[in-house]
């Protein structure tokens, strides 16, 4: 088992665990009941996918760490999620624009991973594709509704696009880990998703009457464990019970 495959699975799993946990913060606070339920459902899908991916990572690592150990007993510096997924939920526009950016990426990524040379990863991806389709539709419809809506909803959606855009580049940045897993067919180099992602986002932005800001610099660091200050606070809350009561069962 190569370190690259382990790190690659952590990146896949951490993106979904962290974003799933962020979405769960909306539970009981959604703008309308249906949307409260929708966000909780998407969170459940993402955390479910993360469970499978981190379980596989633990199995391949072979050090006896299961999905719970990887989720609850790692510090922020050991997390490998993209910065986009860890940012605070903001207002509903920030949440839903971030969800669109990630869901379109996730769908492309999972479609490609169905052809992974690792049968377990290919199976997880085949399930995730079905879920990601729903997530893309859900967030795309909302982005169009908000962007092509009232002055207030348009302004908030545009502000969300402006604030989040600089975090989208990291999704497609490939390093030695990506190249290693792509070489043996275990994973896929994420840079190949940049163009189809942009095409789909451009089309949705056009329908939403939103514009993409001219940002030259893209933030990065999450894939190597260099995170924003927000992740540590999120993990503190997410991990407190597991860390205070090691090995507890109920």
């Amino acid at each position, binding site marked *: 088992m190569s370190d690259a495959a382990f790190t690659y699975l952590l990146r896949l799993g951490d993106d979904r665990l962290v974003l799933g946990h962020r979405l769960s913060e909306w539970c009981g606070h959604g703008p309308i009941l*249906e949307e409260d339920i929708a966000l909780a459902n998407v969170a459940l*899908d993402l955390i479910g*996918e993360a469970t499978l991916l981190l379980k596989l990572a633990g199995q391949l690592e072979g050090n006896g760490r299961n999905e719970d150990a990887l989720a609850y007993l790692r510090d922020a510096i050991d997390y490998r999620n993209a910065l986009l997924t860890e940012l605070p939920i903001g207002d509903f526009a920030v949440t839903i624009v971030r969800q669109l950016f990630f869901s*379109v990426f996730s769908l492309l990524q999972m479609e490609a991973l169905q052809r992974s040379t690792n049968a377990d990863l290919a199976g997880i991806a*085949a*399930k995730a594709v079905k879920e990601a389709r729903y997530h893309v539709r*859900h967030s*795309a419809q909302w982005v169009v509704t908000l962007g092509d809506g009232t002055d207030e909803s348009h302004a908030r959606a545009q502000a969300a696009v402006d604030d989040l855009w600089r975090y989208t580049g990291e999704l497609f940045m490939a390093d030695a880990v990506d190249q290693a897993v792509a070489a043996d067919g275990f994973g896929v180099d994420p840079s190949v998703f940049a163009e189809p992602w942009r095409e789909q986002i451009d089309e949705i932005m056009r329908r939403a009457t939103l514009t993409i800001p001219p940002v030259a610099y893209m933030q990065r660091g999450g894939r190597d464990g260099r995170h924003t200050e927000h992740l540590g606070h999120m993990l503190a809350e997410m991990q407190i019970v597991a860390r205070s009561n090691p090995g507890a069962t109920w």
Partner: protein
Amino acid sequence: MRRALPSREELLEILDTVKDPEVPVLSVVELGIVRDVAASDAGVVVTITPTYSGCPAMHEIETEIRRALALEALGPVEIRTTYSPAWTTDWMTSAAKEKLEAYGIAPPGPADTSELVPLRRRSAAIRCPYCKSHDTTQKSAFGSTACKAIWFCNECRQPFEEFKAI
């Protein structure tokens, strides 16, 4: 004296008594969650697959499967979870879909295998399980469980759930 090992059909009949905790009108066999079952002198091996990656009912379903098989005293029960091929509502039998509708949940249509078309809404309206009208509106693509969506019937003014086709 030990009795003969039960056949696959007999085992499936036993598992057919295990209902899905979220959709109690259907069994885990009818839903397509049970993918395989076989008995040997060493016990019973059941292979199951989750409907959705994060389905919280899977643990409960495993417990219920163990309970049902324990009553038959067939030895140790091993439950394996498989993710491939991915679960699809196409595995649901037409009899199961009729039961679902009678229970008040609109059954799934053919699985959605289309390529990504993010903004396309489903063209065919879902039939209201109560008054059978097709004059219905989707209120949310997500419902009380991962496998359901929320609809509203404009004819009988009744909200209802649809088992999502995936």
